[in-house]
């Protein structure tokens, strides 16, 4: 705020230069986030190179050791090397995130576009249905479905998270489709006998994809959180399947032995990944809205 010394203030739309500048900085590619995320992903993919030990080997001579030169991030209560567990566990945690997101996105696009193209009544019923599913706290829904499927595995947990988290994307897809469905090119495509999937892939998809990209990234973020929360609470992946969440499920014992590294290190990796994803998501969102305002 520009104030001059007489206590008067200059009023009016003259301070526009500041926000414009910030717009520019806001839409900058979050290169740091991409770089960090890329490094972590690469480290996990090449886990057999990055890891210094066999992650599932329980070194009973060296359990609950603080970080030192041999065990870079220390060992957990079972004597597993945390440094190696992080990279191998990251494979599981990140792939749960990716698979769950793919499942939920595909479901959401199908459900949303069917609902958007359907008649008003079918549309209302489908959307109410989605809302009702949203009202069940998703953690309970996940517990139910996981119980139906039996012992959790990486794939089944990704599947469960995927099929419980599509509702909000579906609603956005539906809104977009509803706006688009009367456009000439879609009517034309229908008249020429274009099938549902043809219209979806050729005409609808390219139009709504930018609107949901942000949500897709955010969904990946929440899938990773859900997996780690479930594994932590003992309802997700068992201890033998190493993921960032299941590493943290040992934290009860870690609390008693004051082994901070067992809690801190997997958690920090988790947060860094989530933070990078959030930054990328926000960048996608602002770049989309920028496009819209220019139209």
């Amino acid at each position, binding site marked *: *705020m520009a104030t001059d010394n007489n206590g008067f*203030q200059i*009023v*009016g*739309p003259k301070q526009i230069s*500041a*926000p414009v500048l910030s717009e520019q900085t806001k839409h900058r590619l979050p290169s740091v986030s991409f770089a960090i995320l890329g490094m972590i992903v690469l480290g996990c993919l090449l886990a057999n190179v990055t890891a210094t030990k066999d992650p599932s080997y329980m070194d009973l001579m060296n359990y609950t050791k603080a970080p030192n030169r041999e065990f870079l991030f220390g060992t957990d209560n079972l004597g597993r090397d945390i440094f190696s567990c992080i990279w191998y566990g990251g494979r599981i945690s990140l792939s749960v995130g990716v698979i769950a997101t793919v499942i939920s996105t595909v479901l959401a696009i199908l459900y949303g576009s069917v609902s958007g193209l359907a008649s008003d009544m079918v549309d209302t019923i489908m959307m*109410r249905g989605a*809302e*009702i599913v*949203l*009202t*069940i*706290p*998703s*953690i*309970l829904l996940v*517990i*139910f*479905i996981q*119980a*139906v499927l*039996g012992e959790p595995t990486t794939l089944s947990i990704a599947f469960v998270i995927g099929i419980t*988290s599509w*509702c*909000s994307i579906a*609603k*956005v897809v539906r*809104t977009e489709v509803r706006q688009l469905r009367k456009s000439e090119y879609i009517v034309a495509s229908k008249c020429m006998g274009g099938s549902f999937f043809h219209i979806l892939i050729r005409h609808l998809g390219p139009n709504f994809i930018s609107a949901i990209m*942000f*949500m897709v990234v*955010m*969904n990946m*973020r*929440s*899938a990773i*959180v*859900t997996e*780690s*929360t479930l594994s*932590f*609470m003992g*309802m997700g992946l068992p201890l033998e399947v190493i993921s960032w969440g299941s590493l*943290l499920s040992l*934290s009860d014992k870690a*609390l*008693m032995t*004051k082994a*901070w590294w067992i*809690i*801190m290190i997997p*958690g920090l990796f*988790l*947060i860094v990944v*989530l*933070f990078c994803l*959030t*930054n990328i*998501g*926000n960048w996608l969102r602002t770049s989309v809205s920028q496009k819209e305002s220019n139209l």
Partner: protein
Amino acid sequence: MKTNKVVYYLKKLLIFLVSILALSILVFFISRMTPTDPLQSYYGERTEKMSVEEKDRARERLGLNDPIVIQYGKWVQNAFHGEFGISFKYKQDVKIVIGKRIGNTLVLGGVGFILTFVGAILLGVLCATHENSLLDRAISTIGTITSCIPEFWFSLLLIFVFSVIWHVLPSSGAYSVGKEGDLLDRIRHLIMPMIVVIFEHLWYYAYMVRNKLLEEVRSDYVSLFKSVGINRRRIVFGHCLKNIMPTIVSIMAISVPHIIGGTYIVESVFSYPGIGMLSYESARYGDYNMLMVLCMMTGIVIIFCNILGQIINEKIDPRIKANEITERSEVSYGDGQ
């Protein structure tokens, strides 16, 4: 005009009732589809030693042998009389078990909810009035980081620092043994769960307030007021904030499910005896009667708040036919519950 309004509210009421009916069917059938053995929660370890006939008799007695549709019919009938059956695990009327614990959750969730929004509004105003300053950017960065920390991990961190290292706060429960009536003791137990509940949601809503307010201060009347000589504080609090209040209220209504979902996890980590932990237990061990009541309770609150949010939105802007704001706020926080 008046009949229009009546029809409008009747319509909303109808949607509310149908949603609740659908929810009850959904939860009833899904929970019974799971292979979890409810006898396990009733008899505990003893189930393994029971013979097939004994199990069968027990099922018969608990009404678990009827076809599922008949079970549901019976449940609805009883529910209308206010009878929700007994909890298999606690062998007590469901209402009594829930009654003992609901207070704890209401305190945690309710106070957490209020503090979250008071904090969010203050923080949002602070950031908006110092737009793009160092303060704003610092708060934004810290806020984004806090919203990325998973609830359970943040809880662990607090337990580690305050209970294990410094021994200043208790790590679990709602009160120490034998100190049920001691208010101070209860508050001490409440601090950490409350901090987690608040911090997990604070920045998300503060950010919304900030952005809404930034849009608002760009409007022409702000220049007018400034040229008339009204000071900034009065403009921001007396006018801008007042104008965006309806939006904030509708966001508050929609945020209820997220905060409820958040308390579930927090309660489980801190073994805080509230209904969140109870529903987690009952879902895991097949305590059907309990589960139904808990799901219906949270469902009713959530559906009610959603409809309330819609009504407020439609009041503010009659053009919104679809629940657009609902969608937007669900965009990034459909998670973590």
